[in-house]
């Protein structure tokens, strides 16, 4: 595996999408720096982006893994909010006034565990509905999104849960050295996630099932268990995202981040995830995320669209999504028409060696 470490250039050119994304990210960075260097290139700007990116990144990864298997998870934000609400309530209800340090740590630990468990359970519900009952992922997660958000609303009656312990808020607002804690958490999870997808059997099976579920079934893969695991991981990531949201904002609401779902799909598709399943990289996702985050804060700063910058952003997300999909479609069409271009990969070389071996035997 390590006998031929790929150089950066071959890596970028091998996946033209990543190369393109890198270019886009740099382009946006440069343009925005030129247009407003005083505001954009400051450490504080990057810092504020670094605090908000992680929670969104986790949600994007949750949706990505669902997309990889050919499904989708629209309930990610709902799961995040529910986990956040339950964890927040646990911390508030069970930390008495003037409690000792270890008591606080214990309750925080329990709350975090609860949030993650809730995420996994919600994910399992999704996986069960999609894998066993056979409800198409769109509808199932549409329904569970309503259900999970609805449960959050019932619990909170629409109010925000406030007043979390400082020790917990450290995870959302603290720093280790110059790095914000949430960013570090995100990097660790992203690396683990990439390892899961690329280096484990589960990851390989996910890609297989996403490419062709029928073939996967006949190969002996248990589609149901795979689906269950996929959505449980998605739920776990969403739950973690929910914990990070409440750690940063110090409030748990039932309907926070409603626009995150669309944005997450945009970054996933822009990052090279095939909406039909079977392809996608974490690096692509991260690059797309960074690009859109730059764009987003750029809009804020330039006050593009006047005081309607929020709505203008929505417009842009939609345009970006459509553009990326159209470009991908045209690109795939072009590549399908010129098969000679793909002659350098190992697959094309195999028939030669087989023929070579056969002729050698004769």
């Amino acid at each position, binding site marked *: 595996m390590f006998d031929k470490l790929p150089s950066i250039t071959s890596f970028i050119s091998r996946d033209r999408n990543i190369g393109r994304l890198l270019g886009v990210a740099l382009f946006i960075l440069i343009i925005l720096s030129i247009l407003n260097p005083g505001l954009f290139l400051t450490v504080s700007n990057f810092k504020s982006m670094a605090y908000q990116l992680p929670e969104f990144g986790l949600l994007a990864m949750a949706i990505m893994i669902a997309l990889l298997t050919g499904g989708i998870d629209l309930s990610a934000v709902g799961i995040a909010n529910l986990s956040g609400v339950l964890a927040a309530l646990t911390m508030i209800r069970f930390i008495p006034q003037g409690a000792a340090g270890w008591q606080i740590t214990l309750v925080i630990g329990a709350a975090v565990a609860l949030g993650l468990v809730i995420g996994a359970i919600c994910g399992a519900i999704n996986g069960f509905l999609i894998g066993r009952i056979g409800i198409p992922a769109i509808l199932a997660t549409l329904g569970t999104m309503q259900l999970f958000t609805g449960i959050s609303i019932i619990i909170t009656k629409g109010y925000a849960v406030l007043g979390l312990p400082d020790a917990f808020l450290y995870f959302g607002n603290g720093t280790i050295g110059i790095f914000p804690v949430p960013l570090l958490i995100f990097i660790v999870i992203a690396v683990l996630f990439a390892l899961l997808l690329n280096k484990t059997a589960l990851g390989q099976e996910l890609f297989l099932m996403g490419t062709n579920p029928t073939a996967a079934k006949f190969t002996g893969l248990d589609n149901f268990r795979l689906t269950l695991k996929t959505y449980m991981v998605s739920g776990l990531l969403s739950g973690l995202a929910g914990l990070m949201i409440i750690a940063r904002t110090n409030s748990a609401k039932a309907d926070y981040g409603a626009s995150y779902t669309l944005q997450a*799909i945009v970054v996933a598709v822009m990052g090279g995830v095939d909406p039909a399943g079977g392809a996608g990289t974490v690096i692509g996702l991260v690059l797309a995320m960074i690009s859109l985050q730059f764009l987003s804060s750029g809009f804020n700063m330039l006050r593009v669209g006047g005081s309607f910058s929020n709505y203008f952003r929505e417009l842009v997300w939609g345009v970006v999504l459509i553009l990326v999909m159209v470009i991908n479609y045209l690109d795939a069409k072009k590549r399908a028409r010129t098969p000679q271009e793909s002659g350098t990969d190992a697959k094309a070389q195999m028939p030669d060696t087989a023929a070579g071996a056969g002729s050698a035997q004769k």
Partner: protein
Amino acid sequence: MKKILRSSEFFVALVVMVLCIIIGLINPVFFSWENLFDLLRSGVVTGILALGCLIVIVSGGTDVSFATIAIFAVYLASKILIAWQFDGTVLVAFLLSAAIGTVLGLFNGALIAWFRLPTMIVTLGTSSIFRGAMLVFIGTFIINKLPQGILAFGQATLAQVSNANGAVIGLPVSVVIFFGAAVLVWLMMKYTMLGRGIYALGGDRVAAERAGLNVIGIQLFIYGLVGFLAGISGVVHASLVRNVNPFDLIGTEMNVIAAVVLGGARITGGRGTVFGTILGVMLVVIMNNSLILLGIPSYWQRAAIGVLILLGTGITAWQSKRESAANLLES
């Protein structure tokens, strides 16, 4: 007879009847004329949107942008009419809004038909584009002074009844539009080649292409029609609430899709009837409106809708799974 009893439409009808009886037993106000009119009034907009949604779902797609198209169309149309100081018949409002809606719908259709993009994600994107464009370029203020034609239309009633307090509740004329649209859509789906084509497309797109159907044309028509119906429903909505709020209607897509799927339409395409959709709309509207009658706080609504969607889609998915399993065994 057995076929009727086994169909999903019968099942939904049964559920609706049982629900009505249960709610009526708990709170007899449910069976009053005013409640009935109220339910019909709530159901008209959802119903018209559901008709368009049904056609898309039968064709194998999923459109989540129709609600945005509806409010965009009526908002723009109203602004135009006010700018022209138009005070005439409401027909112009309908035509204008429907035209705008059709254009937006065709935009969807073009992306889906020519670029073969996955319908749900595309309409997610276009919904965002339409909403952003509307709020940035058309405006964010609520229009309270509607053109006279629309107001008059909203207040016109087919029948009136007065309740115990002496207040008069009317059955809005818009229900005629809904039933008219329902009949037309039913005729199209059942008795025209176009309708057959839509069912075929939903069943298997490749097979439909090989059979010589003009898939691109059909898809353009479908999404254009959805936009057309959305535009109409937008005006109806404005006439009933007596203002045009650009933040209205958005978010009600779930209700509509739930209604269509509960009415027996298969999300994978190829199955679904207008009658079933009407039943589904009734179910959703009754659920939404009756929570209050039952004494359930309104913040339970979302979870209730979620459970409904899951139940409805779960049952149809389970049925379809058993069917295909049986086929496998036979072959």
